[in-house]
């Protein structure tokens, strides 16, 4: 589904791997080893050499906005550019079921962004990305600020996304979580993909 060949960016030696349809691949490694650089390079948010293809189509064969709407990066710290939560969604009325599934209060659409906790921001940022129907999600520690029940709901949501044919690359520091959500983990140390463990 997603093929990464010789992807190279400053701070990251050439990386090659593949994500199958419906697969969730986790990425681990010490802080500062290049995990976020990898996700950003795949999303084409930083200039990088090498090729990345989705279902056989090279990303340079389509516009960058088109690529990112298909291969969507969800950063560890989410960004907000309007005053209220609902203003960040094209169609707030239709995100109700996903909001409920992620244990967010239905009335939060009217809330100012400043009222959101870090965990609420993380879950809403995930919702915001998923409701644009991407093919691949690039998740950078999406549950780092969540308690156990909320982490479980996010894991279940991502599992459903994979079941429907989506691909996921998930950066996580939590070894148990990596085992729960993925059968394959990429280890990055010092900007180098050192091993691929089952």
């Amino acid at each position, binding site marked *: 589904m997603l093929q990464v060949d010789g992807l190279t960016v400053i701070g990251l030696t050439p990386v090659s791997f593949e994500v199958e349809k419906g697969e969730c691949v986790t990425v681990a490694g010490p802080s500062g080893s290049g995990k976020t650089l990898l996700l950003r390079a795949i999303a084409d*948010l930083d200039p990088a050499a090498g090729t990345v293809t989705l279902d056989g189509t090279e990303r340079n064969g389509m516009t960058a906005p088109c690529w*990112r709407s298909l291969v969507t990066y969800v950063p560890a710290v989410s960004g907000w550019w309007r005053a209220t939560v609902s203003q960040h969604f094209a169609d707030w009325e239709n995100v109700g079921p996903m909001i409920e599934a992620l244990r967010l209060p239905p009335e939060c659409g009217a809330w100012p962004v400043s009222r959101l906790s870090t965990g609420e921001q993380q879950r809403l940022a995930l919702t915001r990305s998923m409701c644009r129907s991407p093919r691949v999600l690039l998740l950078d520690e999406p549950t780092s600020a969540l308690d156990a029940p909320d982490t479980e709901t996010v894991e279940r949501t991502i599992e459903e996304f994979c079941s429907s044919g989506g691909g996921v690359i998930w950066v996580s520091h939590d070894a148990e979580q990596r085992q729960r959500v993925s059968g394959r983990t990429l280890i990055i140390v010092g900007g180098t993909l050192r091993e691929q463990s089952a």
Partner: protein
Amino acid sequence: MSYIEIGFGELALASVLVVLNGLLSVVLRLRLEQQLAIATLRMIVQLILVGLVLKALFALVSPLWTGAAAVAMVLFAGREISARQDRRLTGIWSYGLGTGCMLIAATLITIFALTTQLNPEPWYHPRYALPILGMVLGNTMTGVSLGLHSLTTVAARERNAIEAQLALGETRTEAFRPVTQLALKSALMPIINSMAATGLVSLPGMMTGQILAGADPVSAVKYQILIMFLIAGGTGLGALAAVMGAAYRLTDGRHRLRLDRLTMAPE
């Protein structure tokens, strides 16, 4: 009413006020006396030089020399814009963008005024061209400077918000829209405030100068209104070009945010 000529004796008498400021600095230990003295001397030397240059240019009435004086004014203004930025675009963009936008905006507005409203003979007569350019340029410089400062500061501060939009598949134009809107508001606010306060809070320098020189107040007011329109046009045009140019430079063809093209100004 006739024009009242002032001599060096009258100027010397007025300079006592600045000397008093210096004494105040010494008594209150503000340590401003040196800066005050240098600024006063610079002002005197610069104005005398400008007076001599203008006198020579008015005698020549040469399009070449008038143009050269205009270019020199734009180049100095461009240096001021660059010096006022905390974060600067890298390379030639730091000086080139603000200067280029100012050159285009101020030149277009000045030529527009000279050829359609003032109609001096010849149209480039330095007695009209240079003062008009100076007033348009001074205010355009402020607008461009504020616009660029706001854009670069907000782009660096709101990096997460801009990249969140890009990551969701928005174009760079869409992702930068809140930033460019804020930058253009910053750029245009001084001229809006100035127009709103003119006549009530302040009497503009050019109008006051004309009245002191013996002109009819209503005629002086008409000139001032024309100048305010020209300044508003120049500021809007210059700031729009500079802000859009900087937003273009801070992104690339693959719609990425390129803050690596910004550098902090030296302390």
